[in-house]
């Protein structure tokens, strides 16, 4: 659902048609692979089927008909939840890089507490790293050590990236043209800290 979540986030500032969404995606997440048009329309179709977006209007001026989409209340809640919820680092292969990058950049573009997104992700990663610690006195074997080392090093790489990203966001200041749209997107305080 990574592309779907990103498209929902892109619709938070307001309705857009498919081409606008592709252009906004490629601008917001300019270091990632550009979104293919086919992927945009298949994702929009799926999001509409799931009642997360709906048609706001159709335009026919100056060329072919264009459908403009907007978030449904459910879609808005899902987009806000996606921004507020850290990426799970415990899945197979760890935290997906594209998901980490998209979520952080979307929070920055939407002026939706990007530093908080980084902080919550940092906490989740540190807890995952802590959970890797073997029980005191538990027997060690090569297999478990090698596996644990691999997981730990990947989490560490993500944590270093998060630290650097936190610095970059802090130094960059608010995103140009960003509108604070997300007052109700922040999770409860205890989630942020615990």
């Amino acid at each position, binding site marked *: 659902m990574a592309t779907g979540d990103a498209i929902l986030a892109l619709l938070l500032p307001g309705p857009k048609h498919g081409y606008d969404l592709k252009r906004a995606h490629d601008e917001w997440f300019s270091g990632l692979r550009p979104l293919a048009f086919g992927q945009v329309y298949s994702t929009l179709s799926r999001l509409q089927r799931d009642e997360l977006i709906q048609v706001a209007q159709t335009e026919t001026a100056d060329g072919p008909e264009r459908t403009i989409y907007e978030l449904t209340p459910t879609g808005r809640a899902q987009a806000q939840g996606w921004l507020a919820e850290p990426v799970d680092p415990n899945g197979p292969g760890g935290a997906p890089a594209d998901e980490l990058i998209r979520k952080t950049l979307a929070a920055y573009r939407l002026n939706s507490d990007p530093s908080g997104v980084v*902080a919550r992700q*940092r906490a989740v990663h540190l807890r995952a790293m*802590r959970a890797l*610690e073997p029980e005191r006195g538990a027997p060690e074997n090569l297999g478990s050590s090698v596996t644990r080392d691999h997981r730990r090093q990947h*989490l*560490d790489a993500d944590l270093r990236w998060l630290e650097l990203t*936190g610095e970059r966001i802090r130094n960059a200041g608010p995103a140009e043209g960003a509108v604070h749209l997300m007052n109700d997107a922040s999770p409860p305080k205890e989630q942020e800290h*615990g």
Partner: protein
Amino acid sequence: MAENPVLVLENIQHAYHRTLAVQGVSLSVRPGEVLAVTGPSGCGKSTLLHVAAGLIRPQSGTAYLFGQSLAATSDDDRARLRRSRLSLVLQFGQLVPELNGLDNVALPLLLEGHDPKEARKLASGWLERCGATELAEAEPAEMSGGQAQRVAVARALITGPQLILADEPTGSLDSSGGRQLLDLMLTEAHKAGAALVVVTHDNTVAARADREIHLLDGVIVSEAVLA
């Protein structure tokens, strides 16, 4: 009722040559708690630790150790506090080069006027607990980084401190040596019921703490409860 914190920092601010190193940091540490202070180089984490230890007098804000304001205590009293209830572990051990391992460990007790024979006997016990018995006769110059750190940890623990402040204690060690030293510090601090504040840039060290605060440009930007 919650136990009184062993360390409280209130709105600490400190600058070096007009460059703010710490900007309005407040935190408290509970008895027995392990707190990691992380952040990139120059973020102010070591300055904060030195303020907590009473080694730096902050330009504004107040540090309380065991309920006592450090601003209101004399230099002598602060030094006594450091020797009795507080211990420091620094990156390179900072052992006294003229003393062998045993006397380095015994030093805090000797400075407090303990019987030298008794102090050395206790020091020998701590060297053993820290896996450094063979370093009793060695001089610091003959020790590896890891060995010097083991001796420094033994020295930090011998007084039965209620608070251990450690600045990059594993910074001079490889990953395996660092893990062993951290295991030792966590185990012994836990046994003694001592709180441990560890300044580190190493995420694997931070992840072992009960709580982590992350500093950027002298400001706490995040706090995570890990246990």
